[in-house]
């Protein structure tokens, strides 16, 4: 009995996206890693093919697909050997805020463009002095007549340079309570006072245009607020569950791929007169890794099933986020060692995977924060 019930349609979708990525993404990845960004044209291409925002309802241009389509897109992206094309962030993390909390006008205006890839989205929570402590953000949103004026600075924002549409978390300085004073707003790129101030240089995710954003008297219509006034923090708490689940998918699918690559490369590479995978020290190591990866897969699929059923996954996804990401980093480290000095060279996929994996335990809530959430919900 399978944990996840993929239908014929899902499988066809997977086939289609796999061959599309092989032809139109993978061959360009090295170039994108060098330039530190993905071209907007590829976003439009994947939008045209119907691979973006698969969960957006049909009335807003989407396919109204279930969460398994999101899983498929994420898993197939892992096969392209890079992380810069953060389509899952756009489709399954940012856009759902609009789908769930946006007014009819906002949905009509933006969702079709997000589905088509004409608009790339990002979400800005983290600030230079507010990371793990999300409630302490200092960016302000002050109502002024029919407008809201935003001031502040955000950092480590994925899709920061490419984004056409940004969801920003800001606080109303007239409300002293940090939680009920927080709101989410939609801001279009190009709005006066919204500056993409700096593209950040990172250890990995080099084709991802992570950026620092600055807001100076940035004026937007009041109608751009998502949901009811003061509801921002709760919206984040709700949607962060799926964001963390997306990270788990990247971790497990990434670990599976690294292990496959290692078995292939090290099955051919000879040392001490034998293929590296046949050396006795290495064989147990490989079996141990395979067991960990399998555990991660079972845990993940069960979580995906629970999430689709609408069960609360707060505790489980927090545990899965720290466990699967730490597992993926262990696997990356050991796979690289099996590759030997060759693995240390950038002309194979392993070196990049090792660099890319390191951030999984940090973003979408650090693993320490994940443990803290589990502690709280377990009543410890």
């Amino acid at each position, binding site marked *: 009995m399978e944990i996840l019930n993929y239908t014929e349609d899902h499988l066809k979708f997977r086939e289609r996206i796999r061959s599309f990525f092989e032809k139109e993404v993978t061959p360009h990845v090295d170039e994108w890693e060098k330039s530190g960004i993905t071209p907007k044209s590829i976003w439009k291409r994947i939008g045209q093919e119907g691979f973006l925002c698969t969960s957006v309802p049909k009335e807003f241009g989407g396919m109204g697909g279930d969460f398994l389509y999101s899983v498929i897109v994420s898993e197939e992206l892992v096969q392209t050997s890079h992380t810069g094309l953060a389509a899952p962030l756009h489709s399954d993390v940012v856009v759902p805020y609009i789908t769930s909390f946006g007014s009819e006008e906002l949905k009509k205006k933006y969702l079709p463009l997000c589905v088509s890839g004409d608009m790339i989205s990002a979400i800005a929570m983290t600030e230079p002095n507010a*990371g793990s402590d999300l409630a302490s953000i200092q960016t302000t949103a002050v109502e002024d007549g029919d407008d809201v004026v935003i001031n502040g600075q955000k950092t480590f924002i994925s899709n920061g340079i490419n984004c056409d549409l940004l969801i920003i978390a800001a606080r109303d300085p007239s409300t002293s309570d940090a939680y009920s004073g927080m709101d989410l707003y939609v801001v279009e790129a190009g709005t006066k006072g919204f500056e993409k101030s700096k593209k950040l240089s*990172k250890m990995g995710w080099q084709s991802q245009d992570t950026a620092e954003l600055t807001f100076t008297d940035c004026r937007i219509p009041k109608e751009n607020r998502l949901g009811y006034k003061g509801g921002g923090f709760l919206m984040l708490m709700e949607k962060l569950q799926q964001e963390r689940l997306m990270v788990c998918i990247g971790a497990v699918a990434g670990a599976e791929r690294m292990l496959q690559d290692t078995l292939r490369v090290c099955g051919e590479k000879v040392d001490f007169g034998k293929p590296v995978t046949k050396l006795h020290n290495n064989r147990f190591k490989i079996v141990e890794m395979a067991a960990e990866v399998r555990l991660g897969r079972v845990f993940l699929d069960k979580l995906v099933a629970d999430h689709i059923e609408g069960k609360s996954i707060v505790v489980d996804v927090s545990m899965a986020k720290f466990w699967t990401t730490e597992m993926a980093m262990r696997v990356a480290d050991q796979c690289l060692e099996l590759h030997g000095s060759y693995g240390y*060279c*950038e002309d194979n996929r392993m070196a990049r995977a090792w660099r890319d994996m390191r951030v999984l335990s940090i*973003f979408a809530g650090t693993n320490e924060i994940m443990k803290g959430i589990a502690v709280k919900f377990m009543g410890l």
Partner: protein
Amino acid sequence: MDFNLTKEQADIQKAAREFARGEFDPDRILEWDRKQEFPFSIWKRACDLGFQGVHFPETYGGQGLELLDHALIIEVFCRQDSGIGLAMALSDFGAEMLLAHGTDEQKRKVLPFLAQGKGWLTLAFLEEGYDLSTFQTISHKNGNGYVIQGKKSYVTLAGMAQHVLLVCQAESNGPEEQSAFLLTKDAKGIELEGIGEKLGMRMIPVQAVSFQRVVVTGQDMVGQEGKGSSYLREFLNPARVEAGAAGVGIAQGAFDRALDYARKREQFGKAIVTFDPIKNKLADMVTRVEMARWMVYRAASSLDQKRPAEDRWAILAKMIASKAALEVAHDAIQVHGGYGYMTEGQVEHFYRDAKALDLFMESGSIEKSMLGDRIAGRA
């Protein structure tokens, strides 16, 4: 049993620390790492101040100090910056083999040259993989001399080093029969091949070197014909100690940065250093640094006391210290959060460099199996 450094050792450590703190410019470090450039200015200055080759005898341009002194300097340099520290440590790679087995003439030619900052030495030994028992690069007898044919992978500073030590298979001898030669990089038939960009150790260019009918004379041989394999095995011990010292320095440097950040960074209204999970992490990090440090000093001291049978200490030192470097740098990134993943946070650079130690010369799992063999009595 005295675990304290001597006054002289403590003075060297202090001088190296002051030099590193004063001269290793963080902006230049980021640039060198990004552009994959050797830190020439620092290297030159370090040589002028006598920090390179301290363990060479005075007659060969050194200060007649011990391997432990040399290890202390490597540690301190790596603590300030992993990239510069490794570049310094690898500038004279192979010198200990020459010291032990070179002729007086060979030593006079090369060692003062290294200590005075006139150039570099490299050792070409690895081919594909870590197996050192049989090489495909072979020296064929040719009259009174030899002709060398073959290819070596992952040769550090190959494009820069004027002197190349080569360990290759000796013709028509058994598998362990190898010879060592000292060549100059201008020798006809030596060609370099790039290996592309590397994950870390980016200030140290590494190339593959092919030898196309390279003609050498009997005078170019280091030590005796057919003894190269034992020279190499013996050389790996000081090399492991040096790599171990680099590991201790990288681990300590990553820890220093994590502690400093944890004290400054406030979340939830308090410095994060006050939170138990961060304190526990810092405690784990210190445990690893200290375990590695004392293992490396023990191994260095064992070699200084000329206990050649004790290569288990050198293996243990490299294995534990390279693991410590990797794990501590990994944790240091975590303590830094998102900032740790950014280039300007600097700790990611320590982490990438640390991973090289785990693969350099031999991997951690090879070391474990060598140790197992020694314990079981096979080698």
